[in-house]
């Protein structure tokens, strides 16, 4: 256990010294995804705006026709897109990086950080779109918005751990890619991204309270949408993140040298 932790920390500290590598590679990734397109990464912004625009205008009812709901759905979607993309890209991470893993001695955590940076850059485009929507929604800017920053930081801090856990899952159980893919697609509807929980019973009750993603969304969303700091959600998100880090360190420590034989 102790040696596993030492191994993991060694891998992480080596990767941190190579920060230039993962930052450069993450930029390459973003560039590659949009190579030869005119708008380039701005497509990420268009994609987000099209999605949220459709939702807000098509699903407009008296219940949802308010600045509050626009903020609720647009922030929810930013966080959800981030989580969904990060988790779905993590599962096949090691097999995607196969040629580097089999040909270089880079610590595994380099690939984890590479994906983390890539996800953050991509999210920045939807955050920009989200801010534009918030400004036009008539919600009015307030200093309480700043209260969602701790939540965002917490999610960013949890990202490398989540990437690690899902990447190992994908390396050991290749089927996980499809299972996780399905879960995340279903999750879009089971997570309160678009729907609001007003104490309904039945499945919505479970989907709200027993869904870890709810809390990840709430820590960022609640300060802006309802103007209060969601302490309960924050504490739970912190615990979930901590759990991910513990598992990630153990996996990294014990199995990092095995990955090369699996991919």
């Amino acid at each position, binding site marked *: 256990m102790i040696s596993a932790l030492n191994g993991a920390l060694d891998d992480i500290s080596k990767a941190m010294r*190579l920060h*230039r*590598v993962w930052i*450069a*590679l993450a930029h*390459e990734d973003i*560039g*590659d995804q949009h*190579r030869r397109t005119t708008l380039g990464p701005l497509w990420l912004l268009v994609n987000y705006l099209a999605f949220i625009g459709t939702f807000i205008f098509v699903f407009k009812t008296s219940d949802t026709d308010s600045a509050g709901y626009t903020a609720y759905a647009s922030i929810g979607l930013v966080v959800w897109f981030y989580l969904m993309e990060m988790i779905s890209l993590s599962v096949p991470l090691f097999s995607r990086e196969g*040629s*580097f*893993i*089999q*040909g*270089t*001695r*880079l610590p595994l955590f380099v690939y984890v950080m590479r994906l983390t940076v890539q996800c953050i850059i991509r999210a920045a485009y939807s955050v920009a779109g989200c801010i534009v929507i918030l400004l036009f929604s008539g919600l009015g800017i307030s200093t309480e918005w700043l209260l969602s920053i701790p939540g965002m930081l917490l999610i960013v801090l949890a990202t490398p751990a989540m990437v690690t856990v899902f990447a190992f899952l994908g390396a050991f159980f*290749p089927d996980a890619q499809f299972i996780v893919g399905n879960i995340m697609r279903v999750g879009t509807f089971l997570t309160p991204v678009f729907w609001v929980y007003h104490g309904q019973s039945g499945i919505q009750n479970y989907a709200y309270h027993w869904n870890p993603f709810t809390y990840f969304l709430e820590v960022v969303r609640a300060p802006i949408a309802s103007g209060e700091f969601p302490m309960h959600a924050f504490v739970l998100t912190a615990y979930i993140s901590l759990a991910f880090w513990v598992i990630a360190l153990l996996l990294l420590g014990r199995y990092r*040298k095995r990955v*090369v*034989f*699996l991919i």
Partner: protein
Amino acid sequence: MISVKLDNVSLAYRLYEKLTLSAPDRRLGALGGTIGRSGGMQVVQALEDVSFELKAGDRLGLVGPNGAGKTTLLKVLYGIYQPSSGTVSIEGKVDALFNINIGFRPEATGRRNIVLRGLISGWTEAEIEQKMPEIITFSELGDFIDVPFKTYSQGMAARLAFSAATALDPEILLMDEWIGAGDAAFQEKAKRRMDELAEKAGIIVLASHNENLLESVCTKRMTLKNGRVESFITRPTKKVGARAKS
């Protein structure tokens, strides 16, 4: 002091069998290490009891049939594979050239790939900038250096890979059979650079099927078969000295 020492190194790894609807296996051929079974799992014995020692200035040629364990051994030396038993002790800065496409991004230009490769090997941006002209000149790629890597021929890729890997003055250079991709003129140039490297008291380990190449580069020769060392021969050093002069 630059040295490589392996003591009873063995490497076995599990083959993960997947649920499949296809006909049961005719996938596993006669090549490669021994595939055995242990507790219902397939285990490949890729290396078994490999021991040898190399000192500064040694140039080892690895020979053996396909799947004998040459590349596996290089990857153990490089630190990609952790041996299942035995010890590997290496003193010196190691660089390796495996499959040409490993570690290169097809979409990026040759120049950008050199930068990435340098960063991966732990150089700073300033060092890369400083080495860049030399790498480009040595590779003789000219204007192609600013063209995406995917458009390169195998030979051009080999030139880039070799130029980049040897530009950082590695103390120990591991190479897999690929150098044959370069044309005769480049092979000659590559050979000279390897000579220089060995004269600076470096170590070269080259896995190849090319007898001429092995003959002209290597001072020692190790034959692998089914993951075991079949023979280890040291050639008289006189010949190397004579060749260096000519």
